[in-house]
């Protein structure tokens, strides 16, 4: 154990003399990385899609909401986002770990976590402004009970400190704290992955099971718990990391088997049917009570097994029908999605902000469905525009620091 730790703690910065040792170590380690330079556009595409769907889901429900994933099965865009985040983070920082050692990789991961934290605090400030406005200008006797939620404004000192501690988290601001905790655990995950990827995944599943068995959770302020329990959601993140570090390749046999395909399709169909019964209660006649009893409620906080399985099935089917080499990935039509996915942190924050702003406009103008659709659409266009501008900054405006640019772009994937 100590020998491994020592090995990891001394980054190979010694220069050429160190090269053979490094190569040997890379070869000896259990994880493998795809060749340098090939960016997995499918990941960007689907993360971009997840960001759009999260944005739409954060707006009040409208017609567009019917196009979002959660209406067609158990899992939703959050699963995609966390999985792909795990995948890209492991991809980027796993390489850093192999090339520069544990300390450097950890340092870079911590910097990334700090960026996410700052983004979270920024969003909280905007949220505070919005909620203060609503509290002071809106007094509908119909909702006198619900308005009690604003009571925390009477103690701004406590509230703000709790927010900085990630314990006070308004609705829709749950994903970033989860992401921060997952990033903070990434050095450990990568460290274990380098030792035994499969064991790491097993440990992660064990933690998930223990969380369910003993009902472990993170408390929040003023009471309650984290809406996304990191102890459960880490499974998806670690699974993403495991896939990135060679797991996907090792699974490819299983993925290409027709049995897997049909099991997945059957499960997706079942899940779609169950979802349908929520909207068309007449259908639930055909649903045995026993199954209903066992199945409900499908828990999002602790990443219900049904949700996880739904995501796996969805991913398996997608990977099968959308090959990496698919020409459409480079088509200009999908470019906006890919761009959004490539700058996920910025676009995610922007999406949360736009959802706040959208709520606000709808509330002020008393929005009809047309305005609602317009807001959703302009939100997505703004996300694409900003993604394009960020991309322009990285590739054109910051070209003077050319060497760094490539790195930051990849790190942006983390």
């Amino acid at each position, binding site marked *: 154990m100590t020998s491994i730790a020592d090995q990891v703690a001394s980054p190979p910065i010694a220069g050429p003399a160190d090269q053979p040792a490094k190569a040997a170590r890379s070869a000896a380690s259990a994880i493998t990385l795809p060749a340098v330079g090939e960016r997995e556009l499918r990941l960007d595409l689907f993360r971009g899609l997840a960001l759009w769907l999260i944005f739409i889901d954060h707006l009040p429900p409208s017609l567009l909401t019917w196009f979002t994933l959660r209406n067609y099965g158990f899992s939703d865009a959050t699963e995609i986002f966390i999985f792909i985040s795990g995948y890209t983070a492991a991809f980027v920082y796993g390489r850093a770990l192999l090339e520069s050692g544990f300390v450097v990789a950890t340092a870079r991961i911590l910097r990334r976590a700090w960026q996410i934290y700052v983004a979270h605090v920024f969003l909280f400030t905007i949220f505070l402004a919005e909620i203060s406005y609503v509290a002071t200008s809106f007094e509908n006797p119909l909702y006198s009970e619900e308005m009690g939620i604003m009571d925390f404004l009477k103690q701004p000192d406590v509230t703000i400190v709790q927010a900085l501690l990630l314990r006070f988290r308004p609705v829709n601001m749950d994903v970033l704290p989860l992401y921060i905790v997952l990033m903070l655990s990434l050095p450990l995950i990568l460290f274990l992955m380098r030792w035994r990827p499969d064991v790491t995944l097993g440990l992660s599943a064990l933690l998930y099971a223990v969380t369910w068995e003993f009902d472990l959770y993170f408390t929040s302020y003023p009471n309650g718990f984290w809406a996304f329990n990191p102890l459960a959601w880490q499974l998806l993140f670690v699974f993403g990391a495991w896939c990135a570090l060679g797991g996907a390749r090792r699974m490819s046999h299983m993925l290409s088997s027709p049995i897997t395909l049909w099991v997945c399709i059957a499960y997706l169909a079942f899940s779609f049917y169950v979802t349908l019964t929520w909207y068309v209660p*007449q259908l639930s*006649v055909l649903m045995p009570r026993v199954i*209903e009893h066992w199945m409900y409620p*499908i828990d999002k906080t602790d990443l219900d097994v049904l949700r996880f399985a739904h995501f796996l099935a969805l991913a398996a089917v997608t990977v099968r029908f959308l090959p990496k080499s698919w020409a459409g990935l480079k088509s200009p*039509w999908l470019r906006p999605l890919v761009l959004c996915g490539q700058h996920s942190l910025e676009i995610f924050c922007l999406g949360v902000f736009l959802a706040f702003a959208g709520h606000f406009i709808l509330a002020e103008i008393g929005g009809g*469905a*047309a305005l609602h*659709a317009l807001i959703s659409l302009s939100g997505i266009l703004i996300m694409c525009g900003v993604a394009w501008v960020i991309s322009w900054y990285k590739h054109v405006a910051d070209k003077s620091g050319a060497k760094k640019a490539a790195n930051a772009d990849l790190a942006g994937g983390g």
Partner: protein
Amino acid sequence: MKPGLILGALWLAAIAAAPPARADDAPKACDVPDNLLSTESVLPRVADAVKAGRTLDILVIGSRSSTITSAEASAYPARLQANLKDRLPQVTVNLATEIQPRTSSEEAVPGFVKLMEGKKPTLVIWQTGTVDAMRSVDPDDFRNAVDAGVVALQEAGADVILINPQYSPRTETMISVTPYLDNMRAVAQGHDIPLFDRFAIMHQWNDEGDFDLFSAAHGIDLAKRVHDCLGRALSKFVIDAAHLGPAQQN
């Protein structure tokens, strides 16, 4: 190329299909689609009481959203009673309300036994979930509490209807009601009791333009109209669940 086109086409379809902006002034009927008022669960004790010609004693237990401050007579429990009297002229309907502001389900349940001993209602309408959602009570604890409450009410000899939280668009970004809605649905299913889906119904009204629930109106008028409609829908729900409709009475 193709997926992009399809996505674009979907959007265009979405915009084209969106109904035109609503006119805020024209009052609408606040009708509720049948699927939001249909339930497979029944109210046997209510049905027996009505068929035997006994009085129908109803108890509404709820938090602040079951009343309108300074206008209790316009709140949905009173409107329910008035509507039931209209629809079932042959029945004497007594209604009592037990408003417990700032009380979570877990805090309310221990008092149920005593409450039931005093009132002995045929039907208990229990509105809950809002306070729990505002306090982010653990959904599992919430489900257990609602479950225990339903059992206590049933053991005391009453039929039970659950009412879930209001749809409150202004506080949507601040209160996450979904887990509580889901758990109430689960409890209702587990005990085979009717759930009056106030959230979905008010949501529907807001979408259809019957009410502008985003409104910043300070007056009490909107609250009165919404409660009137809720009372009417709830009376229909009770009559259907107890199979007391004109077609079913024979």
